[in-house]
């Protein structure tokens, strides 16, 4: 079993994606299937970007067992008042500045759910948001 914890800094655009990159490197070193890594990258990137865009900071836990890749994104931030609305394709509260950068299509969370084998989101307004994701190895 492999376990590692990373930290994402809210608001740091220049570093956005760097945790995903580290996760990719680990998955490659473990010789996991290319398609699985590809899916893991969609999930990790979207969750990491959301943390950068909307949260203050986020702790990312990666666990790999013989059965699955488990990722948890637990952030401190504003939280999500209406989760089912946030999960709707096209819904976004991204600012104009974020949209100019190509964020804010409202596709991140729906794509994470679509790409995962198991997906859970919990959120408390004023505290933060947690995503739990499983990708099964076969």
């Amino acid at each position: 079993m492999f376990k590692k914890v990373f930290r994402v800094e809210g608001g740091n655009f220049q570093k956005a994606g760097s945790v995903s990159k580290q996760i990719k490197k680990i998955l490659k070193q473990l010789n996991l299937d290319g398609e699985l890594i590809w899916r893991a990258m969609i999930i990790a990137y979207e969750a990491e970007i959301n943390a950068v865009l909307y949260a203050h900071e986020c702790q990312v836990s990666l666990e790999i067992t013989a059965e699955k890749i488990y990722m948890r994104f637990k952030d401190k931030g504003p939280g999500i008042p209406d989760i089912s609305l946030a999960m709707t394709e096209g819904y976004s509260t991204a600012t104009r500045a974020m949209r100019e950068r190509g964020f804010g299509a409202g596709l991140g969370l729906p794509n994470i759910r679509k790409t995962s084998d198991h997906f859970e989101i919990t959120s408390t307004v004023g505290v933060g948001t947690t995503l739990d994701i499983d990708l099964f190895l076969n």
Partner: protein
Amino acid sequence: MRLREIVEALNLEILNEGEHLDEVVLGGYVGDLLSDVIASGTAHHLWVTIQVHENIIAVASLKDLAGIIVAKNSTPLEETLENAREEGVTLLRSPLNSYQLVTKLSELGISGG
């Protein structure tokens, strides 16, 4: 077709050589929404976009894209060039717009994959 040959055929400006010029390009994708490209971008495909900020580099790198062609001669931020150098992402530029670029790529046999 190798990326280097595409660069010559389309007279693309090389903003950062990166590690992909000798790679065989398997297809292409156009998009300016990062969520769309991270979901649909395919390894060894070229990405045509007008986005120029640094986060395009992570998308290209995480999805093993062959490279990015910035359309309409948009000027990348210094951070974009810096990240491209660091990640080995091949970053190219053209005065053509996205549609014109895709038309030319298509003529070269580079399809939507």
